């Protein structure tokens, strides 16, 4: 069956099976491989994207459920070639090692900071607990999120 949605600001459509997951549609039909797969029980968060402005695990959504929706993936975060402040934060604070969890972490962080622009350490840790990272021990991820929050606050104050 045919699905269409807005992905990173562009109208995209494709042919899928009813059982096709959104993550597979993004990766296989659209070639947006920045969204990763780390599990099959919705535990790891590597597949996190934004669906109508909210962070969701794209392995928990069928492609057909996203028909007509507005989707943002990691590929849509940088604007005009400039890294998003959260992407910058992860780079500045060494918030990634292998980088596999990173796109999902960044998408979750974006949602977190939208809801809570100035989170405490505990709120950050709680906010990203649905995203697993096996490399960093999370410490530099927490700092990356704080860096991004500071930068975004400074920008919105401009």
């Amino acid at each position, binding site marked *: 069956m045919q699905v269409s949605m807005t992905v990173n600001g562009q109208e995209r459509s494709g042919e899928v099976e009813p059982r096709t997951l959104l993550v597979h549609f993004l*990766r296989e039909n659209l070639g947006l*491989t920045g969204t990763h797969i*780390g599990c*099959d029980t919705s535990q790891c968060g590597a597949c996190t994207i934004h669906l109508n402005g909210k962070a969701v695990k794209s392995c928990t959504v069928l492609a057909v459920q996203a028909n007509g929706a507005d989707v943002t993936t990691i*590929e849509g975060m940088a604007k005009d070639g400039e890294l998003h402040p959260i*992407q910058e934060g992860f780079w500045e604070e060494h918030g990634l090692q292998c980088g596999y969890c990173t796109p999902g972490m960044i998408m979750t962080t974006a949602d977190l900071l939208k809801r809570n622009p100035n989170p405490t*350490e505990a709120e950050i840790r709680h906010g990203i607990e649905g995203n697993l990272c096996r490399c960093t*021990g999370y410490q530099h991820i*927490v700092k990356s999120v704080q860096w991004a929050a500071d930068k975004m606050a400074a920008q919105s104050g401009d």
Partner: protein
Amino acid sequence: MTATEPREKLVGQAIKRREDPRLVRGQGRYMDDIVLPGMAHVKILRSPLAHARIRNVDTARAAEAPGVLGVYTGADFADVNALPYAWQAAGVDNHVNTPRILAVDEVHWVGDPIAVVVAETPQQAADARDLIDLDLEALPAVVDAEATTHNGAPQLHENALNNIAFEWDCGDEAGVEGAIGDAAVRISQRIRNQRLIATPIETRGAIGQYDAGTDEYTFWLSSQAPHVHRLVMAAFVLGHPEEKIRVIAPDMGGAFGSKIFMYTEYPLVGLLAKQLGRPVKWIEEREEHALATAQGRDHVTDLDIAAEQDGTITGLRVTTWANLGAYLSTAAGGIPTTLYGRMVAGVYKIPNIHCKVYGTYTNTALVDAYRGAGRPEAAYVIERVVDLVAAELGMDPADVRRKNFIPTEAFPYDTGIGMLPYDSGDYPAALDKALDLIGYSDLRQQQADARANGKYLGIGFSSYVEVCGIAPTAWVTSEGWGAGLWESANVRVQLTGKVVVTTGSMPHGQGHETTFAQMVSDGLGVPYDDIIVEYGDTAGTPFGYGTYGSRSLAVGGTAIVQSVEKIRDKITKIAAHMLEVNEDEVDIDAGTAFVKGAPDRNVSFGDIAATAAVGAGLPEGVEPFLDATTYFDPPNCTFPFGTHIAVVEVEEDTGNVEIKRYVAIDDVGNVINPLIVDGQVHGGIVQGIGQALWEHGVYDDGGQLLSSTLMDYGIPKASWLPMMELDRTVTTTDVNPMGAKGAGEAGTIASTPAIVNAVMDALSPVGIKHLDMPLSAPRVWTAMQEAKEN
């Protein structure tokens, strides 16, 4: 900048990683991101039983399913060799059984591959896999490392009586016997180091492609050692010329040791690609990762300790049953012997040690190196030993450590149990710094106050040492390893002045592109941005052994430094010729070669590179081009060390362990990039904490894995952890020119005993001396209830 102003050194600076811009944009290229024209997809049917005879595998229905290109069973690969076993337990008989591409006649663990489906899409392959009819005759199974050796236990392999793959020992058995006989204090304890599942967030994968015209295979593999995978497939499995196999390791989403080994799926994708004339891809499912990727640890250990009243440890007997799983994985023999048994002395001077190890077969997944590999098990043993002594004598565990430390003036130090001599160390310095950072004098008072208020506050120590930078080839081959462990590097300077560094190391998150570029930039005095670091493809690169055992900097980095030295020598020759002076009058810095004392007489690095590359105007007898390859075989391993201290509180009502503080003082020698080293230490500590508190690969008695998803296996989450407090002492080593020791595994080795010791300290008021990991809330709560009842 003029040539007289020395350029600022990059080594030692916290430079942010050059790997990251593409990764934060989602532009990494991991295994499943690779799509080749005409690619077909593989799904593997694995045994649902831990031990069974294969009566029949009926593939007829599966073969008819939509999109299916082929269905294969063990019979189809009967002429392909079983996988090789590359690291024997040294000096003893190893009763070797290794996996075949697909099982024939019998399966030995839940996950043993039985059949494979290739289809147009992964979904079609998975659907068809469900249509394969298996007729298995169940046989009795055994899963426990020690129980498997008991009389009457089910037998896995004809050549391994009582399921013993090898019996190995080190140290002085009679000496320990005597020490225990004479001891004022004797303690015995059985401890378990539970099974762990590596669980990188990216599972394994493999793509095979075969070109019939050239008879060449290309593999994309999840590989920490692409050259070794190529060699092993060529020489032992496929019997295909090595030069007609190319292995590429793409970006890897973590590995932690689990992607070192030879796995059946790797040659399989090549064989299928050849058979079908199409590239084929296999991506491991998360549950498959739990079932079929080599796991870690799984020791049962009996300890017998002899000590004096003042806390001096005089003897230690360690008897370990190391569960190796259903077959021997690539390095299975070396981990619980060389990397474990020979490290049980830890940081202590103990006059009598004996360590006996039984490597055993069970109906479980294969066990091999997992972050730390043998050394975490050894650190856990000795650090529990010290705390058992302290608890028995009512002494401060810091004092017992200090009393038994190898003295700083004793290095290089031989522990007498067959390890190479520890290169350098200052164990009291690290302990003191940790005590200082945590504010130890106040902390014990806080603990007393907390206890008075009915709270269970505990302080735990771990003073560790590990063997890294493996390893001198002559030594490691005498220890049963069937190859070398040197490392290679090629450095070449292009006509344009850009520098290309090719390393045999295989980074997968450790930031080598950044670290190595920092080193080369300093070494050649060229801009950091003019250096690129390449790795991960066997085509046209010198053979290298790869990344594991915290060896990339100590061994691989040295190969780079030595290649840089060779290039500097040649630059000096060419510059002297161009400047018309003697070689000893030339100095190099900041992108120029200049006459000492007359920096205005100089030639730029770019001009020298161009002269060398073009080949005109070179001194007599000097070959064109700046290109140097080094194969560096280290004279010794390195021995990083440190002290970690954890403060925990156990909640009485739930048994939940909360980590209040975590202080880590590590000594990894000189540091090239402190940001990257801190990241390695953080990640390592958390993996070790995971073992102490949450992670457990659980098999039931019938051999079913109960923790095969991320719902059941306790990967640490952000909200479970505190901010760690890190600092360092710096004791250099003369094993390599950087004076660096290695940092990839230190955290994991140190943190597990620190946490367990802290929890035992917290529980000491109720009389608990030892609990086995993981110290999950139910386990702790239950133990507290039982202790209170007694």
